[in-house]
């Protein structure tokens, strides 16, 4: 039982970047049951490998390589004749020529998924790891290349690590030549080591192991080399490991961004793709985004958008552009390369993995007002709205953000509305995934704000108000925050506010008041402030105990929270009972400090609220003492 649990824990620690073949692969049944001609050929040679001395063995092994080892029939014949075990046993001897001959064959046939599982089952990996200690360079290289092939599934990668394989592979990267020159032999050894590390790095624990073994500075050093043959596995490894924050930090601080940018201009598409992927992952961090710009990486990224044929490359490049565009300065730079125009052309006829990134990038570009207009002028709004009907979660989240970004311009809003975009957004509030719900609600805020006849439009969505009010029951913080923000906007229309009140918006909002999350507090206070403007809602908020918690918000450090809270308290203070509660909770002292603020809205609200409280206090005193 225990071993099963631990293996599933290891499974959780996997990165999902490649499809994996972890179940025991199933063999296709061949049509005839007769043994293939390849079988007899292998059988004959196997005789000498099993029963011959090293001289005979080497002759047989060399001859075996003339058979078509890339053909499945041949590969399976080696397994079925029991030759595979013999080949692995040869690895365990001290005969370098036999080990070499065997590895040359194993390297080829381990391209086959059944064979590599068999090699692992027969304990071949442990032996190959031991061979990495050999003084013979060719042998080490062969062992590393074979490990690279076999380690394409989880269990194999674990085995390599458990037998000290990661440390030895990292050692292969240690070049013995001087810092700046890259000798051919060292490059070959490092290349094979890097290939193996690349395969192994797909497991999270191996990523850690590589780092602990001192692999990162070595990877950084080889990144400066100009041989594509080694650059590809090096960048491949870095890109794979860049899902770990520690690697991203190192990539940034060891000056690797510069090299990655440089290789974006390589002639080899595979290398370009891995560089773009690495940048995609690393650009989560702001400093990296700045570094990409400083090393003039934004231009080659933009240029690579012209290559539409290679979809994997396009996905990596659009991903890198998306993340880099999170920084406003980068958006401005991208504009020089007409990136918005190009991205809009990629909104149609592209695979999903590309679309997600393209839309993500456009969403970020909307930070700049100019781009919002550009998108409309290039006819980008219609394809965007169409994507609102997608079923892909990641795509929807990005589309929502992009549509919301565009909706900040009234002219764009008109187009979105005419294409029924708002109704589509609203219906996404019903999507089971909280990320989709939240992003839809965020997008609705500018829609409601900027649409013509906004109130009517909202009312036209059957059951729409009930739907959004009910989302206040969600357990997801981001959903709650975004819905509060949307409600604050919707409540500006009296009729809609009345309907929402009927649906119980007041008690639901009050229930959320006890929170320490500043983002939620801010939007909640705004919602409360706007919902006060109907009927007896002010009184109802007091009765549902929203006031005291609000008072506490004033102690937060966030000025945006102060402003929203002051607005809410001001509205609430129109009701005398609320004034009493506020007074009891020390609101006056806190608000007094804010009366001197440079924020006009805050200043006014604070002053207005204090005035109300004071007026009530005076009236009370007057009533008491005549």
């Amino acid at each position, binding site marked *: 039982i225990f071993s099963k649990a631990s293996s599933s824990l290891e499974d959780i620690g996997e990165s999902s970047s490649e499809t994996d073949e972890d179940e025991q692969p199933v063999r296709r049944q061949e049509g005839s049951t007769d043994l293939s001609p390849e079988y007899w050929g292998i059988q004959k040679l196997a005789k000498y490998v099993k029963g011959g*001395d090293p*001289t*005979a063995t080497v*002759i*047989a092994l*060399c*001859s075996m390589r003339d058979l078509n080892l890339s053909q499945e029939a041949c590969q399976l014949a080696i397994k079925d004749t029991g030759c595979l075990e013999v080949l692995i046993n040869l690895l365990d001897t*001290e005969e370098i020529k036999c080990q070499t001959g065997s590895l040359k064959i194993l390297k080829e046939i381990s391209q086959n998924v059944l064979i590599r599982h068999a090699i692992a089952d027969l304990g071949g990996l442990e032996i190959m790891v031991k061979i990495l200690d050999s003084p013979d360079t060719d042998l080490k290289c062969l062992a590393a290349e074979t490990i690279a092939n076999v380690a394409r599934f989880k269990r194999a990668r674990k085995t390599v690590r458990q037998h000290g394989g990661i440390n030895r592979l990292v050692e292969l990267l240690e070049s013995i030549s001087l810092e700046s020159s890259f000798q051919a032999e060292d490059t070959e050894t490092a290349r094979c080591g890097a290939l193996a590390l690349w395969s192994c790095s797909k497991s999270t624990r191996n990523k850690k192991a590589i780092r602990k073994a001192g692999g990162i500075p070595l990877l950084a050093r080889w990144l400066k080399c100009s041989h594509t043959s080694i650059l590809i596995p090096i960048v491949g490894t870095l890109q794979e490991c860049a899902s770990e924050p520690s690697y991203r930090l190192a990539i940034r601080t060891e000056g690797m961004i510069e090299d990655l940018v440089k290789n974006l201009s390589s002639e080899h598409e595979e290398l370009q793709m891995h560089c773009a992927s690495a940048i995609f992952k690393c650009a989560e961090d702001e400093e990296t985004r700045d570094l990409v710009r400083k090393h003039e990486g934004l231009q080659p990224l933009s240029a690579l958008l012209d290559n539409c044929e290679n979809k994997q490359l396009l996905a990596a490049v659009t991903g890198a552009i998306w993340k880099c565009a999170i920084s406003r300065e980068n958006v401005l730079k991208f504009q020089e390369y007409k990136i918005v125009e190009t991205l809009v052309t990629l909104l149609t006829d592209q695979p999903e993995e590309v679309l997600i990134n393209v839309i993500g990038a456009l969403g970020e570009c909307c930070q700049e007002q100019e781009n919002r207009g550009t998108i409309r002028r290039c006819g980008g709004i219609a394809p965007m709205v169409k994507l609102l009907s997608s079923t892909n979660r990641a795509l929807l989240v990005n589309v929502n953000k992009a549509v919301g970004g565009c909706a900040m311009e009234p002219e764009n809003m008109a187009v979105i509305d005419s294409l029924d975009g708002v109704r589509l957004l609203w219906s996404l509030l019903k999507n089971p995934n909280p990320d989709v719900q939240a992003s839809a609600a965020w997008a609705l805020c500018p829609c409601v704000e900027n649409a013509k006849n906004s109130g009517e439009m909202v009312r036209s969505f059957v059951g729409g108000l009930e739907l959004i009010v009910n989302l206040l029951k969600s357990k997801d913080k981001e959903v709650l925050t975004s819905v509060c923000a949307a409600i604050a906007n919707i409540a500006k229309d009296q009729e809609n506010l009345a309907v929402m009140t009927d649906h119980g918006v007041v008690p639901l909002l009050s229930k959320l008041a006890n929170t320490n999350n500043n983002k939620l507090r801010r939007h909640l206070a705004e919602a409360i402030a706007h919902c006060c403007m109907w009927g007896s809602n002010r009184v109802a908020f007091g009765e549902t105990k929203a006031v005291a918690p609000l008072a506490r918000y004033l102690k937060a450090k966030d000025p945006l929270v102060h402003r929203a809270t002051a607005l809410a308290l001001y509205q609430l203070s129109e009701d005398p009972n609320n004034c009493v509660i506020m007074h009891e909770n020390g609101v006056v002292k806190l608000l007094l400090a804010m009366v001197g603020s440079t924020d006009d809205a805050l200043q006014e609200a604070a002053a207005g609220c204090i005035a109300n409280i004071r007026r009530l206090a005076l009236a009370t005193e007057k009533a008491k003492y005549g």
Partner: protein
Amino acid sequence: AAMSRKGVKLLVDSLTRSAKHFNKSEVECLINLFDTLVARASSQFAGVGFDRTVFRDTLHSAFGMTDDVVLDRVFSTFDRDNNGYISVVEWVEGLAVLLRGTLEEKMKHCFAVYDLNGDGYISKEEMFQMLKNSLLIQPADEEPDEGVKDLVEIALKKMASTYLLISFLLQDYDHDGKLSFEDFEKAVREEKLLLEAFGPCLPDIK
């Protein structure tokens, strides 16, 4: 009869030049070793060099080379003037190839070892001679020599493929198949493991 100091110096210089792969101090060491070996041999022929037996023992203890057939052949390649004794020149120059030879020099050495009758070809019979003890486990139902004969065919097919092709095209089946130096060289350049295809005749790295 020991050489004069001047004579030794001249010898060292000339050998350093001809052997190419050793420096002067290494040559001196080898000459000293030679003298030791000669002293061990029978004193009658001291001036000429040391004989086959001493040679075999030396290579066996120094390099772990055990195959008698091969060691005999190596002796013959060293003994260029074929007088049955290894002179100091033959000794140093032979070792230069064995220990530090380029691929070309080693290929020539190995080929010479395997070409038992020195006719410039490795024939099927010669291959059989060298491989006849290589099958340690014989299948019970086979004739004892069948396995070795098959192995010879496999080796020939691997290394002399173009030759066989030509003989087939020429409808010349009388050729019992043999390996020229060109065949051998081509095969080894393609697959380095075949350098000692018919038996270990170079020292082990370890």
